[in-house]
């Protein structure tokens, strides 16, 4: 089947769908897009189901050659995007023709971009999902990140359509996320938070942290004021998305999509999902602050976020 040929795989380009759910009993983690919002916009701009497969490009460097005429959209970090050398804006869908070369330059703000194709990529799922988790060698093409000469087959839809029937869309600028080198992470106190003193918690919420050199899809290790607790460890227990783990050195680790499913370090709380997505757009040296939030308020924010996404009207541009 035809689609795209990978000419240059870039730093880290991964096949992702909405994530792998229901396989915790085998020890498999979720995977899925590190920035779920940008991922969803890419699919929405292509008129796809929101959990359709897209390519998550970290930092940049990916070059693809189209083998078919198709409609694609790129969202997320502002990577300089060119088609056959011509600059193309993000956050909109456009046509590419067989033979076109799509190139992602490197971004200096944000980390991850998403490329979706109308109709979706045609990849066989493993344990119910195509999400690539390199650490587990699961998902994607043979459990691996994209490599040179990989073929990304597409469910071609254009051949049955007349050119004038193809609709192209644009996300209004006001709705396009801006990626910043400073993020606030709204955090629900949870798990072992009662084992941290009130003073420790207040200091935690009033200190600024920096993303250390250890940041990846598994988790972000932060540098800053150490958080102290008098417990050494806990019986290993399930770790949720966004959990803030405090290891012995007191430097917080926010656990993300590719986290291990079970662990024995104490946890002070969990960051809400929309802020986890913002954190995943940060890199070494970026500034992070935590802010406490109640579970009920977090719940409201989640629904407001979903509702806002659903209500936004795309602008037709063809």
């Amino acid at each position, binding site marked *: 089947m035809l689609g795209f040929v990978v000419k240059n795989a870039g730093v880290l380009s991964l096949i992702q769908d909405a994530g792998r759910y229901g396989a915790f009993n085998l020890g498999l983690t979720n995977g899925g897009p590190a920035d779920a919002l940008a991922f969803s916009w890419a699919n929405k701009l292509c008129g796809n189901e929101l959990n359709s497969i897209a390519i998550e490009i970290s930092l940049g460097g990916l070059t693809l050659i189209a083998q078919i005429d198709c409609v694609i959209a790129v969202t997320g970090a502002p990577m300089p995007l060119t088609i056959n050398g011509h600059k193309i804006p993000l956050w909109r869908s456009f046509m590419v023709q067989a033979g076109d070369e799509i190139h992602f330059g490197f971004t200096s703000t944000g980390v991850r971009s998403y490329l979706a194709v109308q109709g979706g990529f045609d990849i066989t799922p493993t344990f119910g999902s195509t999400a690539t988790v390199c650490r587990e060698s699961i998902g994607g093409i043979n459990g691996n990140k994209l490599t040179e000469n990989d073929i990304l087959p597409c469910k071609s839809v254009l051949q049955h359509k007349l050119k004038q029937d193809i609709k192209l869309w644009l996300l209004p600028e006001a709705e396009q996320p801006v990626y910043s080198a400073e993020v606030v992470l709204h955090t629900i106190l949870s798990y072992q938070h009662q084992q941290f003193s009130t003073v420790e918690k207040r200091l935690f919420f009033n200190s600024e942290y920096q993303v250390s050199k250890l940041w990846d899809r598994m988790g972000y290790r932060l540098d800053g004021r150490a958080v102290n607790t008098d417990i050494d460890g806990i019986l290993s227990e399930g770790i949720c998305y966004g959990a803030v783990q405090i290891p012995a050195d007191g430097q917080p680790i926010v656990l993300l999509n590719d986290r291990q499913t079970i662990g024995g370090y104490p946890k002070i709380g969990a960051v809400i999902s929309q802020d986890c997505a913002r954190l995943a757009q940060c890199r070494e040296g970026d500034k992070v602050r935590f802010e406490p*939030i109640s579970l009920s308020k977090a719940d409201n924010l989640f629904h407001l976020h979903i509702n806002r996404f659903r209500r936004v009207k795309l602008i037709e541009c063809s």
Partner: protein
Amino acid sequence: MATDSKPIDDVSFAEVSCDDQTIIKINNNISLDIAGENALILYFTNSSSSTVTDLKSNIIKEKSVAISPAINAHVQQAVTIIRQHLATSVIDLIPSYGSILVVFDLLTIDHHSLRKQLKQLLINCEAVNNKQGRLVELPAYYSAESGIDLPRIAKHANLTVEQVIQLHQAQEYRVYAIGFAPGFAYLGEVDERIAMPRLATPRLKVPKGAIAIADQQTAVYPAQSPGGWNIIGLCPTDMFNAEANPTMPVEVGDRVKFVAISKQEFLKLGGQLDANSAEDLNKTPEPIEKQSKAKQVC
């Protein structure tokens, strides 16, 4: 996010007190707490031995007695009940030694109703009489070449290598939890005489099939990976095979017994000895800065 585009209205400290009591008690042995935006966590204790773990959480008071088959059986029973009754609103569960992480679908249920339903479902969930799980035998090639840490453990325990091997295979283990990595089953409990703390610095490369000990836990590494457990042998059985059905030879609640095999049997069962493995194992890990460069974004 820059402060000017902050999409979230102010959340002040006044609304969220750091001293908020988030835990609720379901019955004498089960309590329920918050984990995250779409996750709650159930903690199980044994009321007759409340010194084992703190009733409110999962805190280890006395590490050596913290793992209990009775509590884990209770966890298993609750998992069955939750799977039966909350299949539509619960996305997935992570059972472990004495807890269950309940991840739910925020578009189907909210935490208030889920708490209520869990309470109703589990209020009468008593620890049943340790139902016997399936017995799974795993072949084990114990030797100097496959178990690099055997001499260290023997020395630490003041036993011979043969006695260490004997003690490890004499015991029947329970599968307490599966996690950390695909197919990684936490087995307990190892005879306390051969319990051994994790290595201070984890090895960069532990071979696939390595049978290892950490404190009173033992496990078989399902794939080559970094690891800090003490290696005593090799198991030729695949602990995780995405193509096979079932994917794993064991599930939580099963009983596992290791059966010693010879090198010939090990090779015949498909086991592989990497000639370089012993050498690799003795290499000191690279400094963390170097490691981080290699896996900076993956």
